[in-house]
């Protein structure tokens, strides 16, 4: 028994350790470490910008996505929901870079600046909200009709059914949407630099432009680590928030 637990642990830890080793080696080899130390204030500014981009767009996408997805499952929205789903699906098929470019091109037309943090946030948010809306809608829609009938027949109000039955049971599916959204945001955030949104993309693109691999790696490695950090946090919170009764697959955590 204990042997098996050790084995499991080793199986998880070895790849993680090797990845970190590889990244550190790369980081040191190209002098990214020295560059970062020399530019530590700028490094922190970029980190803060990067986190701001990711977290704000993420929080907005979750709030709006879950609300909209939930509203679409209400009887009164039956007609509108298929239209919204179509829009959401089309929207999600547009590549991230194109979304950024579209935001850059469109926002000035409605009197907003196309350059800076705001358009980057709007683009990230719009792109990330789609999978959350979609999964919230289908997650709630998939809750068994028998469960809803039992709840209604027992005298639960619509609101109680939504918060105590529908949302908790849809949570694994919603969480899937949030994971997809996080992957989109974390993957697109470095591109935000291209429309003046700041973040660690600054060093990556500067490195590319100057053909200086050190600067590029100094930006790329933190970006990769942030992605891993978010994935870890999400998996942890899924374990915490999703009832054991509806967890379908064991959520892998490191």
């Amino acid at each position, binding site marked *: 028994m204990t042997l098996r637990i050790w084995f499991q642990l080793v199986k998880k830890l070895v790849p993680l350790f090797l990845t970190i080793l590889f990244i550190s080696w790369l980081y040191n080899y190209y002098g990214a470490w020295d560059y970062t130390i020399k530019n530590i204030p700028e490094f922190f500014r970029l980190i803060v910008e990067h986190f701001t981009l990711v977290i704000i767009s993420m929080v907005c996408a979750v709030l709006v996505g879950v609300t909209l997805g939930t509203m679409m499952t209400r009887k009164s929205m039956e007609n509108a929901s298929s239209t919204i789903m179509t829009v959401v699906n089309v929207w999600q098929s547009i590549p991230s870079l194109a979304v950024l470019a579209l935001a850059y091109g469109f926002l000035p037309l409605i009197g907003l600046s196309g350059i800076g943090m705001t358009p980057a946030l709007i683009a990230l948010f719009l792109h990330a909200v789609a999978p959350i809306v979609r999964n919230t809608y289908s997650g709630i829609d998939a809750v068994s009709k028998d469960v809803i*009938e039992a709840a209604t027949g027992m*005298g639960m109000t619509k609101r109680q059914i939504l918060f105590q039955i529908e949302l908790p049971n849809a949570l694994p599916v919603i969480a899937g949407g949030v994971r997809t959204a996080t992957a989109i945001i974390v993957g697109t955030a470095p591109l935000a630099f291209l429309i003046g949104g700041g973040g660690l993309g600054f060093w990556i693109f500067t490195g590319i432009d100057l053909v200086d691999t050190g600067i590029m790696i100094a930006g790329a490695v933190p970006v990769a680590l942030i992605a891993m950090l978010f994935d870890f946090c999400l998996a942890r919170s899924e374990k915490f928030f999703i009832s054991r009764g509806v967890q379908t697959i064991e959520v892998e955590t490191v």
Partner: protein
Amino acid sequence: MGTMLSLQKVTKIYPGAGHIKAVNELSFDLEEGEICTVVGPSGCGKTTAMKMINRLISITSGKIIIDGKDISRLNTIELRRSIGYVIQNIGLFPNMTIGENIAIIPKLLKWDKAKIDEKVQRLLEIVNLDPDEFRDRYPKELSGGQQQRIGVARAMAGDPPIMLMDEPFGAIDPINRDHLQNEFLKVQEKVKKTIIFVTHDINEAIKMGNKICLLKDGHLVQFASPEEILTHPKNDFVADFVGGDRTLKRLNLFTIKRAMKDNPPTIHQDETIETAQNMFAKINSRYLIAVDGEGVLTGIIDKQGITDKVTHVKDVVSPTEAWLIAHASLKDGLSEIFTHDYGFLVVVDDTKKVLGWLHTEDIKETLKG
């Protein structure tokens, strides 16, 4: 015991083509503590009739009175909380533990926590599931039969005087269904709820109901006790629906105790064979029932098995399986009689003490009424 539930000319017309009456002027009264099984061919309106009671379906015309109160004047949510509801597909909440599932209505009714915990504990005991083992498990970890027991426990949690059950055992395999039915009847003896029990299975309707409400195309065809429906079906439809074997079905309605003859020919197993011979001479029977000092059945003596060498009863007693407990059904009794060669059955109590004996003639007499 007064009238608990009263349906008065309840009618449901679904909007749309034809204005077909799904339920047509249905009226009946139900006493407190009675189980009324609503039965009929599919599409007869039995589920519609039931769902109008907790207003999952609105009434087109007519009145439903619960405990003297017209339900159309009550708040829908409060009404539903005062009515237990069990459906065929159970509908346990997958995100909640068994304990939380049962506690849901008491929580909505704002009971205090100690009272809720105690209720959960007691209900799990009533439905024969170990509270400590099951309280913290999730529905997906339970078998279908276990889940339905929780469904019943959950419906009883708010102490509703009335329960609606929509084919509660319909999705459960026959062996478990029989078991659950018996268990439920035992629970009902303790809790004495007024129950509307929808089923499409006439056998279940006969077994579970004090009253049977037989519907056809939204009309009430016959509302009577199972005994009445089986002996005096109102028309050909009812007779057909209960089946050609309805007399045999009546066997389920009686216990052996009701049909058996008292004072069977018993003899103490330590008696001499002369005593036995004397008894055989007095009564017109090939067999005697041997008992011990406490009156407990030890076996049967066959007159033709007695030879000259035998001196005592206990030398010729052959152990027997031809006995049944007095509260078993006549159907089991009849089957047991045919299984053995004696032509009768020894009827005993829980301690296997002999109470009487049962012949096929006794069964015939009972069925004649």
